[in-house]
């Protein structure tokens, strides 16, 4: 190794040790200053602005979720979009819930108890029997048109009342689609809030329930609402 490299490196070593910018400029350091020139103020301002916009758009698009402990059903996962409640499950793991949200659309999925708190409080109070209604906007944008029709009609069934699959099919103008109606109920992305537990079989029996705990949970919800 040549003497000049050796002495320059000795200098580098001193500079690094001091952690100060007391370097003596030489050809390499001058060249590095040229190569690593900063961007202009205008380039910086434009880039930061575009990034701020991208983040704002993603904040708006994102799904925010939390896992809460609720009476009657235990561990409850719920997710909100900027439009309203997007998904609710109980009995499943947080990781599974978040992964399913992620797969559903190319959007950020973020655990954020603060954003979810108001909705979580209502649902908890409702399940504790402390309030009569759940008054949360619902985001049905992830559903098919048919699901929207069926589940929209289910939302109109008030607390303490119930309806049969057939009546529901009639109500949406598809009297022969009871089976498809059943499937749409089975894929309800937010049980309890969209009260599919209020839909019963024609003979008055409970029928099925896709939520965790099955018919046992359905019965408990109907009892809570004074329908049984």
């Amino acid at each position: 190794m040549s003497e000049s490299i050796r002495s320059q490196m000795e200098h580098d070593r001193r500079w690094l040790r001091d952690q100060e910018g007391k370097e003596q400029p030489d050809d390499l350091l001058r060249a590095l200053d040229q190569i690593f020139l900063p961007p202009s103020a205008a380039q910086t301002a434009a880039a930061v602005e575009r990034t701020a916009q991208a983040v704002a758009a993603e904040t708006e698009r994102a799904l925010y979720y939390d896992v809460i402990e609720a009476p009657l059903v235990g561990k409850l996962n719920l997710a909100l979009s900027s439009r309203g409640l997007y998904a609710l499950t109980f009995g499943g793991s947080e990781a599974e819930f978040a992964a399913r949200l992620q797969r559903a659309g190319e959007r950020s999925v973020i655990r954020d108890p603060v954003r979810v708190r108001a909705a979580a409080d209502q649902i908890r109070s409702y399940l504790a029997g402390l309030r009569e209604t759940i008054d949360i906007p619902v985001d049905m944008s992830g559903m098919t048109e048919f699901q929207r029709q069926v589940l929209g009609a289910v939302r109109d069934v008030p607390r303490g009342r119930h309806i049969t699959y057939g009546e529901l099919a009639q109500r949406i103008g598809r009297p022969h689609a009871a089976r498809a109606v059943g499937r749409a109920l089975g894929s309800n992305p937010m049980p309890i809030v969209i009260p599919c537990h209020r839909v019963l079989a024609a003979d008055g029996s409970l029928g099925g329930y896709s939520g965790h705990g099955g018919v046992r949970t359905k019965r408990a919800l109907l009892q809570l609402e004074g329908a049984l």
Partner: protein
Amino acid sequence: MTPDAASTRPEFTQLVERYGGELFAYLFRQVSSAMDADDCLQDTFLRAFRAYDRTEEGSNYRAWLYKIATNVARTHYQRRKRQGDREQTLNPGDGSSEPGPAKLLEERLELERVRMAVKSLPDKQRAALILRKYQGLSYAEIGAVIACSADSARANVYQALRSLRIALKTEVVEAGNERIDSVANGA
């Protein structure tokens, strides 16, 4: 209302306001194109946004963002390398010494050699060099960014300078030899 983990973190948009400018400068220095740096900056903050709920409160968000930016820049480098190292334009000099055309050309060639040598540095060394010399991070912070101790971060900066000095000296000698060979071969 009891404070919880999420509420004690700063609003994410504040991070963009506070660190966006310096991270853009860092990415600009890493990828040497304003357009690519612009893309990388968005990528950095969108990745950070998605991971923000998993950071611990009171984290060093600056070092955390630099870490993400370093990963984004590395991915960018690898993609570029696969695309076959497109020619990068030179940053303009400051013109303070006003050299004549011949001297300017020589300096540009020299600068291009240094640029190539910087490009072929290991990612960690290049990152450590830029972070220390131009972004003003402490060695402890650099360690957090490139996943090593403060001492090791310092060693990376030193190694970067050492590699550059050796590479540049070696290249001069090799270039000189080539010239002699071509003359000897009657080219």
